């Protein structure tokens, strides 16, 4: 691919994305902290490693989702210029597909139908699926486990995003806040975006299916929303 330097420079390698094949990951944060920005960076990192990403956006439109990719890619290219940016932009376009659903139109059976459409007709075979906007308040453990089984059977790495709320203080024993506190066992890795006065920190709550220890030393740059390693 020739984009190894971009992959190597990416601070997201701390999340050990390559080692989490077939597993589910979760990004949590309060509204507006940068969940989608982080999901898109995970997707772009996956693409730069030569893989394909299906981005499922629930409750958001196609143009806005595309815009996230355009903006994040521009920010990355500004920091790490490449010789032929157009080729990189083209490559991202060809390795990414976006599906948007209305909240009510998304469920496990619809997801399976769509994935089968793509894979069986050889239209687009993803290696990773990111699901942004999934409503965890309207699901239960069994339903989510069902989705996990589906994704594992298709050998797909899956990343979800979830919004936590200030007034809901429930947490799981591993520290995963509501509304995902009862589903934490289904996720291999859980990352919480925490807002401090002048920065946003990425706190890894679960890693390799267990409660994580220590800090990730990662931050989101509030200007570009790019992940950075702490100095």
């Amino acid at each position, binding site marked *: 691919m020739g984009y190894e330097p971009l992959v190597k420079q990416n601070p997201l390698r701390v999340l050990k994305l390559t080692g989490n094949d077939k597993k589910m990951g979760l990004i949590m944060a309060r509204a507006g902290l940068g969940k989608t920005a982080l999901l898109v960076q995970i997707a772009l990192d996956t693409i730069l490693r030569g893989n394909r990403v299906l*981005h499922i956006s629930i409750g958001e439109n*196609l143009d806005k989702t595309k815009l996230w990719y355009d903006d994040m890619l521009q920010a990355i290219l500004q920091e790490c210029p490449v010789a032929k940016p157009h080729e990189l932009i083209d490559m991202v*376009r060809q390795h990414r597909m976006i*599906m*948007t659903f*209305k909240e009510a139109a998304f469920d496990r059976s619809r997801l399976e139908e769509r994935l089968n459409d793509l894979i069986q*007709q*050889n239209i687009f075979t993803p290696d990773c699926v990111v699901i942004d906007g999934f409503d965890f308040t309207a699901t239960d453990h069994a339903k989510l486990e069902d989705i996990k089984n589906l994704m594992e059977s298709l050998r797909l790495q899956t990343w979800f995003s979830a919004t936590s709320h200030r007034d809901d203080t429930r947490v799981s024993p591993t520290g995963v806040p509501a509304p995902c506190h009862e589903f934490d066992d289904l996720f291999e890795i859980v990352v919480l975006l925490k807002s401090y006065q002048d920065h946003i920190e990425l706190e890894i709550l679960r890693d390799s299916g267990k409660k994580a220890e220590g800090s990730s030393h990662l931050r989101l740059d509030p200007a570009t929303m790019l992940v950075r390693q702490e100095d």
Partner: protein
Amino acid sequence: MNKDLKFVRNIGISAHIDSGKTTLTERILFYTQRIHAIHEVRGKDGVGATMDSMELERERGITIQSAATYCSWKDIDINIIDTPGHVDFTVEVERALRVLDGAILVLCSVGGVQSQSITVDRQMTRYNVPRIAFINKCDRTGANPERVVRQLREKLNLNAVMLQIPIGLESDLEGVVDLVTMKAVYFEGEQGRDIRYDEIPAALLDQAKAKREEMLDAVSMFSDELMEAMLEEGDIPEALIREAIRKGTLSLKLAPVMVGSAYKNKGIQLLLDGVEKYLPCPTDVENIALDIDNNEAEIKVSNNTADPLVALAFKLEDGRYGQLTYVRTYQGEVKKGEFITNTRTGKKVKVGRLVRMHANEMEEIEEAGSGDIIALFGVECASGDTFCGGNINWSMTSMHIPAPVISLAIKPKDNKAQDNISKALNRFCKEDPTFKSFVDHETGETIISGMGELHLDVYIERMKREYKAEVEVGAPRVAYRETITQRAEFDYTHKKQTGGSGQFGRVGGYLEPLEEGVYEFVDDIVGGSIPREFISSCDKGFSASMDKGLLTGAPITGVRCVINDGGYHTVDSSDMAFQQAAKGAFKEGYRKASPIIMEPIMKVAVEGPSEFQGAIMGSLNQRRGVIVGTSEEGAYTVVEAELPLGEMFGYSTILRSLTQGKAEFSMEFSAYKQVPKGVAEQLIKEYEASKKN
């Protein structure tokens, strides 16, 4: 014509095909008493709708050329441009929008915001056209105006606010509730002519109250007075609400939504009231001209009738009595018998006949004031020309014209057709800047090019019908381009000695890819190795080489030709010799500069029931398409993809059979991109073979 510009509205009616905009226009003309009978688009009476004046439009039930018409509603003079809905004709839409002050965006209450509505809305945004959304066909099964409003917000990012709610839906549609006056409005009598105001039906009262609250919340953002009145919780004056809606609409921050059914004659009069109350008059809109004499400095046109004339020719038609030129005046007056200047040519022309158009009928007038849309007879000009009066030399901002992407070879069936084809092509090229024609000197074929299959199809039909010119049509051809991908040196000597004076010229330098633009010539000669008088000869030679690429004969784009060395002979060097030397040098460099073939890539949106999503994606995938994404909303899906134009020929038939005719697609040009290796090899092979024959 009323002289006060406050009482003038220049509006367009734009929408997705089959949303019923021609039917709506027909009703508007009927209620404003411009016509005295309603004819349906595909009506059994065989008359067709008034605005579909071309025979072909009537037959196909689509509007191809936007006809301009004029009507009066209450105290207001309204100029209406009916615009085509099919994406192939967007230049018509764009030209109409350029001269309009406001628009009605017609949406089907069942189909909602469809692909063409998105294209049209983007165009309206580009030209800052305030709009009212009219949700039509509320009488149809599956009508859901609320869903359409949501789509207006989500898909078009419009701050859509309902000013009305329907009373009943589908076959129960009875009328509308006006949320401003909080009255139920019914359209009774023959063809809905009699309006009856009544109390809101009890069953709808709560919904109406809630919707009014929602509307007032949105609208109050544009009026402090309204916000204060709302806080005081007393009666809110109707005028205050209307003023706030108008303010929001004019600032493009609000899109008022009205509902009804043109076919069932419901809601049209209120829509006309909306045009009067919420859409801008010519003085509400800022229009900018360029002062040619002052380095194209931007100047705001005054709209003042007393100032010198500034008018834009936005549409041409060749009729029986000569060229008919549709003109929008921005300031000053145009009078019969007066001389006006075409700023492009600098020529003065006399205004012969001045007419106000009503579809294909016309009304003679003596003069037209600022802000008006009229037509001139017998004035020679091209579409997009500006006319000025007095001593000013201004040009209205140029219009955005997309380049043609598809071409067809046509051959006359007999000698008589040959002459008529030339006449027809001459006229079409003048009328439509996206339609081009030329003769391929190698094959002797006449090539026409345009924006899509349907676009060219329509012109071929028009040749047949209007000019009695039967033509044989070749297979559609994609407008390929060639370009280079790396820098390459050349050093070429052109030498010929065949008796008499010889030819000698040597040109050295390099070619390199040009990021933006088609062609650039750079003279880096120092020390006079090529005499000054022959530098332009080199430019001519390089420039001529760009017309035909060496791989497939397609035009070349994106090349910078730099000369930095050369040689000459005091006797044998000439303009011709250096042109030939430059052509030879270009060939030499071009082969080394890794040339590639590029093809037009189209942005395609296919809409259809969700159950066919897999089939739709499969069909696009088979055509070298990159599926950008899908949007699924309930039972309806839109698949967006990027595909090479060459793969889209005949796609409509395939899509129909795949989806039982339930899906449709639109496409527009996106960019030129390199063709894959296999396709390039095939194209080169075909070109080589054609050269041998």
